[in-house]
């Protein structure tokens, strides 16, 4: 019996990307307020000649700050368009198994890799740090002074940890030039 894998794939796609609901709702609320104020102001200007004169004076004085206002509006527009167009990936990765969809935060995976590397090389956990980016896993190792660490062992431990979780990825290992006394 197969579960709807389409649903799993859709869930993973949604959970690995930002929803953009918060900025969209903020923009919606701000636009609604501006429109309501503009409608009320328009009605008021229509019925009250004094208000109309005041509005004309205000429009003239506003012309002085027209350029900074316009530039500010363009900057805000660029931010909004970027939010609309950029993919908004989150630092997570997912895969669908036969029965369920598994979603793992990149930080959790990086912790696992660093733990395994530290254990395999027999060094302290604080001497290893790992970062997982979209296409690569970076492992930085600070060896203990005078104790050589095999590059292959580090790579092997990191790859094994990633494969065990089902997210294989190329590993890049870097050693600190100066060791530490542990």
């Amino acid at each position, binding site marked *: 019996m197969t*579960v*709807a894998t*389409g*649903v*799993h794939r*859709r*869930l*993973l796609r*949604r*959970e690995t990307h930002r*929803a*953009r*609901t918060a900025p*969209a*709702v903020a*923009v*919606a*609320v701000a*636009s*609604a307020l501006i*429109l*309501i104020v503009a*409608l009320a102001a*328009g009605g008021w200007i*229509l019925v009250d000649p004094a208000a109309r004169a005041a509005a004309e004076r205000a429009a003239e004085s506003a*012309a*002085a*700050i*027209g*350029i900074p*206002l*316009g*530039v*500010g*509006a*363009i900057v*805000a*527009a*660029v*931010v*909004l*368009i970027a*939010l*609309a*167009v950029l993919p908004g990936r989150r630092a*997570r990765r997912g895969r669908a198994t036969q*029965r*369920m*969809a*598994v*979603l*793992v*935060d990149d*930080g*959790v*995976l990086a912790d*696992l890799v660093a733990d395994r590397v530290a*254990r395999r090389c027999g060094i302290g956990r604080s001497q290893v740090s790992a970062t997982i980016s979209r296409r690569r896993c970076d492992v930085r190792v600070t060896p203990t002074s005078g104790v050589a660490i095999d590059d292959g062992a580090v790579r092997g431990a990191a790859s094994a940890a990633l494969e*065990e*979780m089902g997210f294989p990825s190329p590993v890049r290992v870097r050693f600190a030039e100066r060791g530490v006394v542990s």
Partner: protein
Amino acid sequence: MNATNRALNRGLLLLVGALLASVGAALVVVSAPPERFGGMRGAIVDASAAAMAPTLDVASGVRVPMAGVIAAAVALVAVIGIIAFIATRGRGHTTTVAWDEGGTSVDRSVADAVIAGALRDRTDVLSVRTTSAEVRRSPVIGLTLRARRGADLAQIVRAAEHAIEEWDAFAGREVPILVHLAGPRWVDGWHSATRVRGPGGASAPLTSRPEIGARRREGDNAMSAEDKIKAAADKAKGKAKEVAGKATDDRGLVAEGKADQAKGHAREAAGEVKDAAKDVKDSFEK
């Protein structure tokens, strides 16, 4: 986890961004000194004058530009649209995780008891949260697991798979499930790296080497698959009865559920005794 229409979110951001960009550009052009964008400025001023020219007689002596009336109507429609937009965010939340045509539905708390309950007993799991939503007219269960530092994640995933098997056996259908291994929140920094299990269990040192002291590994477990399934089914059935009983204030059902769970535990214990006996036998044979 919800079913919010995300394309609409992005569409609104794009629309407002484009409007804001054109208004900002027009403002800059109009306010700049005349020798800069001279031609463009003239075009904008002419166009706005032309737009304001046709007027509408609203009352005796009061004439308003036609463009103003149209703009007001558009603004009114836009405000209504925005209210509808805000109201439809976050759709798809539901507390029902399974339903059928017969009108039977299962509440999220039952799934939480069966799936998350089994995982909460583990010493290497900090917290489990169950969520549910309706996606593409199908119920979906979400489990957010926070593991302790140094925990064996693959083993936790296997445990989740196992708990889901129990749930499937209970629910009688396969509801799509999303298991999320989440990173620690800032409050999780306050938890210690180890946890002492309550009566009946041993403390599990996780940051040190877990293989020390764990004489029997998972793969060696000889308890037969049939025993395991029976025990698990009893426990799941019992838990569900207990939860249902509590929800409906039916004490009889709660008691029945507890009895079923005890049966499950007994079955499990019997299986372990069998294993232990086998181990003793093996050690003599070696």
